């Protein structure tokens, strides 16, 4: 197995173009597990840890955040929790301190596991994934178009993930995850809701309950129609119930070693109601403060 160590992004893109079978490795917390389990034996590993810009984040002129694919969870938590609270909450639930030090959102996107914890917040926030190839330059792929199947994403063989670009939270965001135990666990199911009060709508993201991470579109439409953004009243139980139902209905779960399909659908509804309640309560408090 060859081990390629590009020093710059251009070199990395060139290497990927030349050897599309090369497997990029960032934190290695997925790649090394797969190699260890003999899931694959790639001809080459393309080590991206030397590419400095992947490990940076910055504000875009339009106010959005651009976060390099190589920023580890530990830094998402310590540096971005105020601007990307949903993603930071998700990052806190990933693995262990060691995994959070090495693992990255870019790697989560590269692996494209339906259970990856970054995906629900990226979907709920309306993030765009920036991918690039030496031949065709940069492509911006909206998160919901990025996930194509179980562990399949929209990358072309010669492309690499450069960054994700996402609006800074304009309202409360909550992520919640159910696991078979309380830490070091892949999600049985997960859910994120992000309120976008300025647009009078809410975004959602479902994890580990379908072949791909997905938005609960009907649930989002329902909220856009029903939520009284100006009001400061608590949510009506019927609204919460319906929202939960719509989120559960959006999923297409299966039975596996971590849980049953029926449980996943049920638990998703619960997570949806909970996270929306938390988010709405925060929103109400903020609205009261403004009033």
């Amino acid at each position, binding site marked *: 197995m060859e081990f390629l160590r590009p020093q710059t992004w251009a070199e990395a893109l060139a290497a990927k173009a030349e050897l599309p079978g090369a497997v990029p490795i960032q934190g290695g917390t997925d790649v090394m*597990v797969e190699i260890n*389990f*003999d899931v694959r034996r790639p001809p080459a590993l393309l080590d991206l840890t030397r590419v400095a810009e992947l490990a940076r984040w910055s504000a875009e002129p339009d106010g959005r955040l651009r976060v390099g694919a190589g920023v580890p969870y530990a830094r998402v938590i310590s540096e971005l929790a105020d601007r990307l609270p949903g993603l930071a909450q998700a990052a806190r639930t990933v693995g262990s301190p060691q995994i959070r030090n090495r693992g990255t959102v870019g790697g989560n996107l590269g692996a494209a596991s339906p259970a990856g914890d970054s995906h629900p917040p990226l979907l709920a926030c309306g993030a765009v994934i920036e991918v690039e190839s030496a031949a065709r330059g940069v492509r911006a792929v909206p998160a919901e178009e990025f996930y194509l199947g179980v562990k399949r994403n929209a990358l072309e063989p010669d492309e690499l993930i450069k960054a994700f670009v996402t609006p800074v939270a304009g309202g409360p965001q909550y992520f919640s995850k*159910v696991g*078979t*135990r*309380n*830490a*070091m*666990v*892949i999600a049985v199911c997960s859910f994120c809701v992000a309120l976008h009060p300025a647009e009078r709508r809410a975004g959602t993201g479902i994890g580990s309950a379908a072949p791909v991470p997905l938005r609960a579109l009907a649930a989002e439409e329902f909220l856009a129609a029903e939520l009284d953004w100006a009001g400061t009243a608590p949510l009506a139980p019927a609204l919460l119930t319906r929202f939960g139902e719509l989120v559960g209905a959006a999923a297409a779960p299966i039975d596996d*070693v*971590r*849980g*049953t399909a*029926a*449980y996943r659908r*049920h*638990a998703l509804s*619960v*997570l949806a*109601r*909970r996270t929306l309640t938390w988010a709405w309560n925060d929103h109400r408090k903020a609205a009261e403060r403004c009033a």
Partner: protein
Amino acid sequence: MTVAIGEPVRRVEARDKVTGGARYTEDVRAADTAYAALVGSAISAGRVRSIDARQAERAPGVLTVITHTNRPDFAAQPPTPYTAEGRMPLADDRIHYAGQYIAVVVAETQEQADHAATLVQADYQRTSPVPTLDAALPAAYIPRQNGLVRFPSEYRRGHAETALAASPVRLEQEYRTATLSHAPMEPSSTLAYWEGDRLTIYDSSQAVHTHRALVATAFGLPEDRVRMISSFVGGGFGNKSFAWPHVFIAPMAARVVRRPVRVTISRKQVFTGTGHMAATVQAVRLGADREGRLRALIHDSTNQTSFIDDRQEGAAGTTPYMYAIPDVYARMRVAKVSTGTGGAMRTPGDSAGAFALESALDELAYKIGMDPVELRRRNHADTDPVSGRPWSGKRLLACYEQAAERFGWDRRKAEPGSMRDGDDLVGYGMAGGQRMEHQSRARATVHLSDEGTAVIRSSTVEIGGGGLTTLSQVAAEGLGLPVGAVTFEHGDTDLPASSPTFGSLTSGSAGSAVRLAAQDALRAAIELAVGDRRSPLHGADPDDVVAHESGLRLRDRPDRAESYRELLRRNRVNSLRGDGDFQPAGETAGYAMATFGAHFTEVRINRHLPRVRVVRHVAAFSIGRVLNARTARNQAQGGIIMRLGAALMESQRPDPVSGRFISPALTDYHVPVNADIGEVDVLFVGEPDTNANPLGARGLGEISAVGICASVANAVYHATGRRVRSLPITPDKLL
């Protein structure tokens, strides 16, 4: 008198372990070592038609590839169950389970061996596997080769069927336990080398003398030609109690390549190559009167076993001993599944059995409207119902009482689902536990030196339970030394044969041997002193001399004293040796022996997302004398936490088609993490039980893991009104 026994002494090897100084089997180096990788079968039933090893043999560094076609012969098949499988590795072309070793690749480095192992091509002839216990159940039978032979596969007193039919209250239920993996941190490792016909074998073994005998038999050697060493074991929980195939493969391969050979099994092979606790299906039928007195009990368990062995998981083994019930029938059967042979796992038989029996008692308690503690009290066995003999130091009633009080059982509202806290359903549950106390011959010597220090020499193995510390305390107290003055040579067949470090034998058996050895050394010191004109103790009656502060003194005359150092130096004696040979009284003891426990659990279950959280667990144990308050507490908490895993999450599920484990890896075989564990409080009600043995201590490692699953399931019922009879209690079962 120096009081060392019972003190919360820190582990004597702790510093070495946390600084990397402790040498585990994997850390041992031998010059010119070659490394083996074990190739496992990809299918779970059938035959190997052929193996093409040519590519592997040509790979860099490869010395040889050994298969059933070119292996040297073993001299004999050593006996099961301590030889884990009743089939020598690479015996023939038959495949009995997925992962069974079909080839051994030996190379210059581990990496080369691992790589070449992937190049070995096997052509299989598949037959149809029996994938699950359910598929095998119709053909279940009484084992022909009875597992650990400790319990007969069938037990009968009175006429249980008749008594059941005549009972005013009856209950009949089926309970299931999942296949569990030991999942210790340390994968098993063996390093073997030959010097002529002498074999040295470093092995992560829980029982060097027991396993040496097996290796000697397999290679046709007298035992004294084989030396086995197990320095420290990085967790076993029973998976290093038996000698698994790799233990025999290492010396065989070393013979072939004429070099030392190291075999360290892979993390996955820990799951497939060193046993598991076999899944069980247990039918329990209880008959009682309306006052809760049990009249009849039938406990019928079937466990999966492999096509190689009839290994009984003794789930109904302790049942006849537990309660004062006139009519009892217990039966254990096995059913053949295309899976590996089960091993001994903390706590063999009783963990699974107590789940069924103690759940059933809880169901009965609700049925007749009686407090579950009271139901157990009413059926308490004051004497052993099997032998009729008195119990040695049974304080189970005190366990119920003290644990219930510490837990706050009186706050329990009887009605299921009646205790709530916001969205949390709160449940209180309890269960009892019992483990028959086994004993084994154990020897030790204690050398008392002219430095005023002592060395214990004994082949006992430190598997993480704290045995080196507790046994050092025993010697220290016996000789009146500080614990720090005692060192230990352990885990080596060149030392006096101790008891194996399994079956909760260390405190009672190994401990008694050390006790006797220390007493013997003390006797020698006293003899020397009273016969020595220059000693202040000269001429004293030996019975009046006691050990005191690193020396001797007259019991009633503190001024007539001298140190060991002075005594031995003056007499030019470098060291005095004491021998201890503990021989269990066995059937002639006059007492029945067991350890006992009571568990109380509080669960909280969010009513929407019904995940079970064990927020509090209180247990009390009757184990005689506690040798070290700290290690005992730690040991008991470990046993409880291990079984909380079985109660809530652990299950090694078979693939429904092939029978191979779906998740033989820690990625999906989940054991509890810190964040899963609430408060675990442990009490010991014991006082020294010198009927059991000279030391007065009984085992703890195993009883600590008996009864927890039922206690949790009973609490879950109390919280929700839902009875889960199949472990683990995952949220989907509570929807």
